[in-house]
């Protein structure tokens, strides 16, 4: 195999052209001088169409993707995304819809959004849903801004702290800090739960919220979740639910009933919309009726019968332009909730993702969603049971949808998780999440998801067990890995310290002189 694919810039030849522009059918005019660039554009690649196609096809064939291999990245829920969902999203009525074509011409799209709001609310036990945020982290920020608006609306200005467990996703403290809060870390106990004593110590009249992931990032169900919710509420705080791990509890437990006030759904994890480079994401959010008036705009509602009041969670201003004819009763329209924090994303959110999520929910139904979680949990426990005698479990409990093991091999102490992950590539598997959660030394966080068969799970476990044997026999095999890939082990330290973020021929020439191949 031709191993090295040069950057597209280096395939360039002067005068080559890859597109045929149509004949000019309007009078030609010059661009205004102030729009012209002073520097020349030399260096932009010039190639023929087949050269471009082959370049990108060759690169794409090297992809470790869900369509070519199991991707066991913990906390990412890299399930296989059915091609049927793609078909639905490509229906011209959805794909060619324009966000400015108006509610009259968007009734089908708005109906889909309305129904998805209701489905997500039902699955999670929340009263109101907004489909606006573009990803999980934006869903988090939306939630914390809603909390802030809620506290302020009640005249409560003393709440300046957000509590975050030490096992949390890094986005949780980042969210709280960006929203202007002081972050207070809460410790985990020996069983991987929130340490209730530490929580009691840290709750106060300054507490705006606790951000909790359940199951948590150790892949464990938070055993005291209702007690945690009670304590937070007693202190006057709100409970934020990070929905990253929702895939473990669909159809089994509703976060709204556990005491959460607000959560985000990663449609791109749990509800099979593409992610991991394919995206974009969608971080829809759900909340209690008390918080509904603060949700971002727009949401979708049905036009009520003349004289009939709107449900409490759907009160707010219609976004129909002034003077537009009234929509008939039962039609779908966009509205801004009464005390909305405003927009967090243009237009209707990442609408194509909403179509895929709707299609997923409707195609497998309520029973199917429950089976998703049951199978995801079973698969993770199967992997844990097959591996934990070699790779110790961080906390030896029945896990949920993912298991956190440790790359600490008794027979090869010099081998690190990093080496094991690299060697797994040689066995044809995408490495799992490594070194997260931060509280687990040498963490190997494996989330197989429900879409892998027993045959694939066995092949994956066999590979990890074979790697452990290699490590005991000759650790150098792991230290050299990967050996079957177009480029070998990358210099991650140099990449972090001296990142090269754009093509510069002189820099690339210098790297070549150093013997670096790319």
């Amino acid at each position, binding site marked *: 195999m031709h191993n090295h694919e040069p950057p597209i810039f280096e395939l360039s030849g002067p005068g080559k052209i890859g597109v045929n522009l149509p004949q000019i059918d309007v009078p030609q005019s010059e661009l205004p001088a102030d729009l012209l660039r002073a520097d020349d554009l030399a260096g932009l690649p010039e190639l023929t169409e087949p050269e471009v196609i082959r370049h990108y096809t060759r690169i794409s064939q090297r992809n470790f993707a869900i369509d070519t291999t199991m991707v066991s990245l913990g906390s990412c829920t890299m399930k296989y995304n059915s091609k049927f969902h793609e078909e639905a999203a490509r229906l011209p009525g959805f794909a060619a819809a324009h966000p400015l074509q108006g509610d009259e011409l968007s009734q089908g799209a708005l109906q889909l959004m309305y129904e998805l709001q209701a489905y997500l609310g039902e699955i999670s036990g929340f009263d109101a849903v907004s489909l606006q945020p573009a990803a999980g982290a934006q869903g988090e920020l939306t939630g914390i801004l809603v909390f802030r608006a809620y506290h302020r609306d009640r005249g409560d200005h003393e709440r300046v702290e957000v509590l975050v467990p030490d096992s949390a996703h890094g986005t949780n403290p980042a969210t709280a800090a960006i929203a202007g809060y002081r972050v207070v870390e809460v410790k985990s106990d020996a069983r991987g739960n929130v340490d209730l004593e530490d929580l009691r110590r840290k709750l106060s009249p300054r507490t705006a919220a606790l951000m909790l992931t359940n199951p948590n990032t150790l892949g464990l169900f938070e055993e005291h979740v209702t007690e945690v919710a009670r304590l937070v509420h007693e202190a006057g705080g709100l409970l934020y639910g990070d929905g990253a791990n929702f895939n473990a509890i669909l159809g089994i437990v509703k976060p709204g009933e556990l005491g959460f006030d607000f959560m985000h759904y990663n449609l791109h994890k749990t509800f099979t919309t593409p992610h991991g480079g394919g995206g974009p994401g969608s971080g829809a959010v759900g909340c209690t009726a008390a918080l509904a008036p603060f949700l971002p705009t727009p949401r979708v509602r049905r036009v009520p019968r003349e004289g009939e009041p709107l449900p409490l969670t759907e009160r707010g201003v219609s976004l129909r332009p002034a003077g537009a004819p009234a929509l008939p009763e039962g039609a779908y329209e966009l509205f801004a909730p009464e005390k909305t924090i405003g927009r967090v994303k243009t237009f209707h959110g990442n609408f194509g993702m909403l179509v895929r999520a709707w299609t997923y929910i409707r195609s497998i139904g309520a029973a199917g969603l429950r089976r998703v979680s049951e199978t995801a949990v079973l698969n993770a426990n199967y992997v844990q049971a097959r591996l934990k005698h070699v790779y110790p479990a961080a906390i030896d409990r029945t896990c949920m949808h993912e298991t956190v093991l440790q790359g600490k091999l008794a027979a090869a102490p010099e081998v690190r998780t990093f080496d094991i992950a690299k060697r797994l590539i040689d066995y044809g598997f995408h490495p799992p999440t490594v070194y997260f959660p931060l509280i687990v*030394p040498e963490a190997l966080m494996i989330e197989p998801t429900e879409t892998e068969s027993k045959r694939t799970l066995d092949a994956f476990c066999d590979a990890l067990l074979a790697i452990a044997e290699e490590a005991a026999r000759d650790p150098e095999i792991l230290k050299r890995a990967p050996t079957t890939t177009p480029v070998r082990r990358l210099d*991650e330290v140099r990449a972090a310290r001296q990142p090269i973020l754009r093509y510069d021929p002189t820099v690339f020439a210098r790297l070549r002189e150093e013997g670096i191949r790319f």
Partner: protein
Amino acid sequence: MAFKTPTELQYSKTHEWIRIEGDEATVGITDYAQDALGDVVYVDLPEVGARFEANGVFGAVESVKAASDLYLPVAGEIIAVNEALVNNPELINKDPYGEGWIVKIRVAPGVGALMSADAYAAYVDTIKH
């Protein structure tokens, strides 16, 4: 693997070392900490003049694996930061107790829980495996 724990230093449970000389002190992270972190790629240093309580977060180190907060073992005011770490964060890996020092402080009353070298080495043994 045995990690270096110089006997003239004192240590914290969060793997910082401190060399107290009169009312001034130098702080860095331990050999064990640099090894567990792996190659350090970035150090977030505090401003000179900033004051911290004992166990307050005064900065962060970022490695290829993770970012970790730095805790000041005793209360104090920053009087110097190791500017060399801005361009050469690997000094922390190469020489954690020497050129890889992170801050110098003027010690304020309010001492945190410090350990001797022996106590720290024993503590590391308990968490290593």
